[in-house]
């Protein structure tokens, strides 16, 4: 296996696509739960918190895999601006994937609200109770949630652009399907 890898590894793809599901679910629950007073809110909030912690664990594993396997190179003819956007957005995504769950956990701690996940798993507080701290964290969690969704839309648009307009193989590096990677070697 000395040939250059053309795509992300199967484990990286699996993590990417399972996190797509987790993160989109969290974002939609998040924006819905802030504006509704219906009974299903309670279970949705518990799903949101549980997915957040699962997502945090997945993001840590993903970061480790990324440091080990790195990312496949971008096409050499990619315009500078697109290259810049592609590379910088990776950092922002990792910051959000790790930061959002910590902000959520932190804001609940700062408001002395218990963090209860599914099957009554309870997490300890990670910050002291403090109204000012709570407000800062809660607003950050809110605003970054919107930013996260906007970035995901931009990311999806960019991927489709790579696939449909440039057809430069970037989409295939992370395409779902675990065996494609092998076939390209």
């Amino acid at each position: 296996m000395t040939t250059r890898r053309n795509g992300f590894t199967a484990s990286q793809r699996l993590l990417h696509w399972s996190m797509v599901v987790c993160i989109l679910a969290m974002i939609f629950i998040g924006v819905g739960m802030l504006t509704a007073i219906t009974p299903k809110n309670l279970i949705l909030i518990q799903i949101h918190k549980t997915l957040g912690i699962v997502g945090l664990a997945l993001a840590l594993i993903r970061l480790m895999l990324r440091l080990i396997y790195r990312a496949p190179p971008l096409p050499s003819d990619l315009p500078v601006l697109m290259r810049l956007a592609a590379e910088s957005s990776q950092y922002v995504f990792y910051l959000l994937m790790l930061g959002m769950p910590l902000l959520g956990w932190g804001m609940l701690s700062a408001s002395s609200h218990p963090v209860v996940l599914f099957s009554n798993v309870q997490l300890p507080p990670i910050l002291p109770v403090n109204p000012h701290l709570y407000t800062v964290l809660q607003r950050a969690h809110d605003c970054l949630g919107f930013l996260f969704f906007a970035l995901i839309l931009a990311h999806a648009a960019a991927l489709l652009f790579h696939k449909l307009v440039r057809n430069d193989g970037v989409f295939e590096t992370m395409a779902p399907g675990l065996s494609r990677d092998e076939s390209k070697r």
Partner: protein
Amino acid sequence: MQQPSESSRSLLTSIATITAVVGVAALAFAYTAGWFSPSRITPAKMLTALVGAKGPALGHRRNHARGICFTGVFDGNGNGAELSSARVFQPGEYPVVGRFNVAGSDPKIPDPMAQVRGFSARISTPDGQEWRIAAIDAPVFAAPTPQDFYAFLSASASKDPAAFKRYSSAHPEILTFIAWVKNHARTESWAEDRFNSLDSFVFINASGAKSVVRWSFLPAAKAVTLRPDELAALPPNFLEQDIVDRVAMEPQRWELVVTVANPGDPTADPTKAWPADRRTVDVGTLTVLEMEQEEDGPCRDINYDPSVLPSGMSTSDDPFPAARSAAYRFSYDRRMSEEAHYPRTGTRAEP
């Protein structure tokens, strides 16, 4: 394939596809956020309706704004274990941080004018779990669903005099509630009031059996009621002064009594009382040991969200705890961000 017209057509198709994918996702997001549902009752709308035209008192709870903190203990007697596996029903003593309050969005409302009195408690157990309770002295609630409650608030605030008539003819139970508010005999003390969960909850015991329950705190102090003229003559802070004096003299106690619904009882509707012969279980005693002014007290930064329940308890088909949770959180977010308007005075260390 390489003809310019065809390739530009395929570029257009591609861009249209990308726009469609992103657009549909953005629309789904906007729909979920309620941007297309102006009639959706949001926590913000609910609180605006509750607070009324005067607007909120910054830094304070949006409703039940006037209150005072207490600390104490709950002594579980073990009898609750047949209904719920919650640690709080094992025999033992568990710390409580609570708050006596009166309804309304004005933290300076004179106590004699208070129409509804309330009581909140957070009971903590050694397993790290919490039971948060927000109860009031009314025997039943004003409206059967959060949507109806919102309609009631809107109708009451409406300039159209027929609006309330329309609501009350569709919801006669509101007249029962208003009659209670107007006519019930006021006691001279929070320590003499009975506080009711109103909402129903589900208790799950160690073998998994479920019961739908409501609960009440029954005062140990004998109720002494006031005539309207006696009440009106009392000072604006008489409730606060009274509870501080009483607790300084001796601890004040309430029995926590759980009422178990029979099959078919109206568990989803807090305007409907259950028949008086329903089984009750006395599960322990709540003792108030010390009072503290709210601004420097331990209850100020607690959200008494009734959906915070230990394992062994859950919400029922009663839609209010979820709605209260959403509204309380919104109120909490607002008042925490307004902390500068209601700061600690420094007589007690910051938590």
